[in-house]
């Protein structure tokens, strides 16, 4: 079993078998992260460029650690300090970077489809680290890995995704992945934060959180993306908290062994109560740990066979 594509651009184009391959490979890489010497020589001599056109701490650091643990050289480029601010086009930036022969370009961009545009024009492998409101495939894979670790399976689970669905690439990738792997996905959000035709992703929409969350195996909270909100999507923070935030009381409606996830960063007191975020059901920090293992697996699978 191998990945069919040289790039990882979205969950949509991955088959269930390819998703399983990434998740199985991630298990081995998690073991590497638990050693005293957290480094293997698998990608020695390979170069990974982290090209980030949007601010990010955890995803960029996660990819950087993943590359370093595989002995690859990783270089970080952010748009703020690059020629982009001097007016260079995306294609020129990428072509110039490619002239320095990187093996993998990990790319985050505020425009949906930007990594696809680049992948069609370069020889290097391209990994989408989040593109606009489209997809964030590595986040969905690390979420799936975390669920698999906790539940032992992905099929037959009830996963409830709550929050700012409209702006969330994490939601889109997760909905595609989880439905592909046999979970049922229920989503809940204020109507103003529901993407049009969201049902086409194969999810069930229930607008009242208290109803949606009943018997959930997994509750996945999404960050309210204040930076993408130009209009009035909800009347006030207090109202959003009252109607949609995950509280200790609300979580009691889920199954007893429910797990709670959040892609971060958290808006404490807006979409999630601190007592829940830091409580016994929370796997939020496990998601971060698993992110490194999953990204190691992806870099290995893409760069190892080039």
């Amino acid at each position, binding site marked *: *079993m*191998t*990945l069919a594509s040289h790039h990882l651009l979205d969950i949509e184009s991955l088959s269930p078998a390819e998703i399983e*391959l990434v998740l*199985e*490979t991630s*298990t*081995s*890489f998690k*073991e*590497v992260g638990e*050693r*005293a*010497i957290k*480094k*293997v*020589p*698998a*990608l020695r001599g390979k170069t990974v460029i982290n090209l980030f056109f949007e601010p990010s701490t955890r995803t960029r650091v996660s990819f950087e650690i993943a590359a370093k643990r*595989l002995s690859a050289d990783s270089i970080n480029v952010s748009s703020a300090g690059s020629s982009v601010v001097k007016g260079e086009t995306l294609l020129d930036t990428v072509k110039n970077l490619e002239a320095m022969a990187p093996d993998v370009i990990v790319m985050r961009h505020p425009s949906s489809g930007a990594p696809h545009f680049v992948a069609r024009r370069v020889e290097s492998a391209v990994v989408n680290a989040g593109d606009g409101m489209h997809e964030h495939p590595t986040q969905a894979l690390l979420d799936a890995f975390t669920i698999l670790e906790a539940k032992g399976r992905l099929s037959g689970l009830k996963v409830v995704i709550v929050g700012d669905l409209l702006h969330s690439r994490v939601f889109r990738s997760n909905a595609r992945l989880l439905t592909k792997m046999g979970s049922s996905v229920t989503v809940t959000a204020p109507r103003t934060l529901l993407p049009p035709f969201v049902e086409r992703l194969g999810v069930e929409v229930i607008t009242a959180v208290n109803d949606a969350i009943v018997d959930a195996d997994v509750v996945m909270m999404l960050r309210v993306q204040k930076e993408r909100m130009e209009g009035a999507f909800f009347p006030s923070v207090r109202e959003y908290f009252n109607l949609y935030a995950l509280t200790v009381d609300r979580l009691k409606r889920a199954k007893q062994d429910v797990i709670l996830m959040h892609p971060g960063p958290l808006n404490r007191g807006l979409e999630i109560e601190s007592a829940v975020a830091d409580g016994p059901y929370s796997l939020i920090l496990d998601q971060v740990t698993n992110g490194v293992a999953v990204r190691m*697996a992806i870099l*290995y*699978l893409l760069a*190892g*066979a*080039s």
Partner: protein
Amino acid sequence: MQQTVIAEGAEFRGILERLASEVVEKSPSGLPPLALVGIRTRGVPLAKRLAALIEPKLGARPSIGTLDITLYRDDLIAVASQPIVRSTDIPFAVGNSSIVLVDDVLFTGRTVRAAITALVDFGRPRKIELLVMVDRGWRELPIHADYVGTRLRTSREQTVQVLVEEEDGRDAILLVA
């Protein structure tokens, strides 16, 4: 395809018994603690079997570990497909121990080189030795085995297969031409 049986069944198990005795002879009781580390895939059941044979002779059970060397290969780029990485499990303190690496076939020596590199990432063993069921020659690195089940003169194109009951349903050493 021509297949020659070099050893099977009781003869195969006799070889294992002799190898276990040789390991015990060179490992007088006491320090350093003895550990057997099997190289995936066939080295793992062989290491477990040897540990069971060694235990009554030595009066102590050697520790057992499993090593996957995929991430330490030096030919990853040359491999056309994406090799599957399996787990490594070294559940004992490597530092100061006496480790016997166990593999089925010794050929170019590259697997063993990768295994030694992987092992020292876990600590600094007092000693590492190598045990193989078959030494078929054609070394590309200066590596030799301390314990050898059987030595075979082979041509480069031939294949040597070690079958074990746990994986293959029978114990055998086969030379395939």
